[in-house]
């Protein structure tokens, strides 16, 4: 997961794209250390544990759980990984370009 996400963020750094981690490892200090050690540059929501507010509200039952939203905020894909995640994002970015024309 992480190597793919690192390259994904790098590849799309100039695109209208954001990866947000909703992290359940612990407090901000603990997560910051992980981010530094693992070379993670993208934003995190600090949930403290798997029972944090966001995973609780969104009824998350397994980790990782992934949602892909388009530019209008609509959920378009769930639990896509690696190549499938790339394809999903590229499709949505292409849609945005198409809409601008």
């Amino acid at each position, binding site marked *: *997961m992480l190597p793919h*996400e690192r390259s994904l963020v790098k590849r799309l750094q100039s*695109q*209208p*794209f*954001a*990866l*947000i*981690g*909703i*992290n*359940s*490892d612990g407090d*901000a200090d603990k*997560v*910051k250390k*992980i*981010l530094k050690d*693992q070379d993670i540059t993208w*934003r*995190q*929501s*600090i949930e403290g544990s*798997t029972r944090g*507010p*966001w*995973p*609780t*509200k*969104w*009824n*998350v039952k397994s*980790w*990782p*759980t*992934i*949602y*892909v*939203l*388009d*530019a*209008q*905020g*609509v*959920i*378009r*894909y*769930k639990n896509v990984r690696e190549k499938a*995640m790339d394809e999903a*994002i590229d499709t*949505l*970015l292409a849609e*945005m370009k198409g809409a601008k024309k």
Partner: protein
Amino acid sequence: MSTLVSLPCFARWALCAAALALTFTLGFAEDAKPDPQQKFDAIQARMEKAQTDFMEKLMAEQDRAKQRAMYDSRPGLEFAAEFKTLAVETKGTEVAAQSWMKVAEISGEFDQEEGFKSAVETLIAEHITSPHIAALPAMIGGMGWTLGDDKVEPLLQSLLAKSAHKPVQAGAIFELAQIAMRSDKPEKKAQTRAWFERLSKEFGDLKSAYGKDYKSIAAGFLFELDHLQIGQIPPDFEAIDENGVKFKLSDYRGKVVVLDFWGFW
């Protein structure tokens, strides 16, 4: 009694002695033979020992292919056979209920469809009021992932129809609700709301095995159903990032967003 009294004294004494001896023999025989619960505990203890020993050996093995082969012949099924024998011997008792639960659990772990189904059917037919079947709904629901939901659904329906025990009924409804939710058949998926609403209405105050009440469990799933399906726009959410800065999901409108619920653990 009259014959006994009329017997000569020594004969009466001999009879009493014989009766006494018989009592002792029976008493001893009963002591020497373990009772069914002890038998159950003994099988359980041997199984746990075998599994612990196996895990140690598995961890010590470095070669992945050998590990795989070891795992495929892991201990388990031989104990299912022992539990089944005990269940048959003690038919109708609580020990039988516990034994059939073990047969179901082990058969499930080893993907033995017939063994699993027959154990569950016996539990429903003969042990529907036993407190030992509390974990049965979750066990059946969990098997949906390997056997297929269409195979386990009738078992849950039958359990729900026959049990008068609230935790079992609630557990069965919860599993049926989740099966409906993950179904790709529209007519089945459409039943999801009704199942969760029933769970909340009839069993809301009851706590699941994980300690959460069914009302809040149902609310979580209904939120997911109403707001987190493909094609829906989830309500805004405010979070705090690693630098203590607040942000909202809606800050990211105009961008393609991947939300990754994760942990490094």
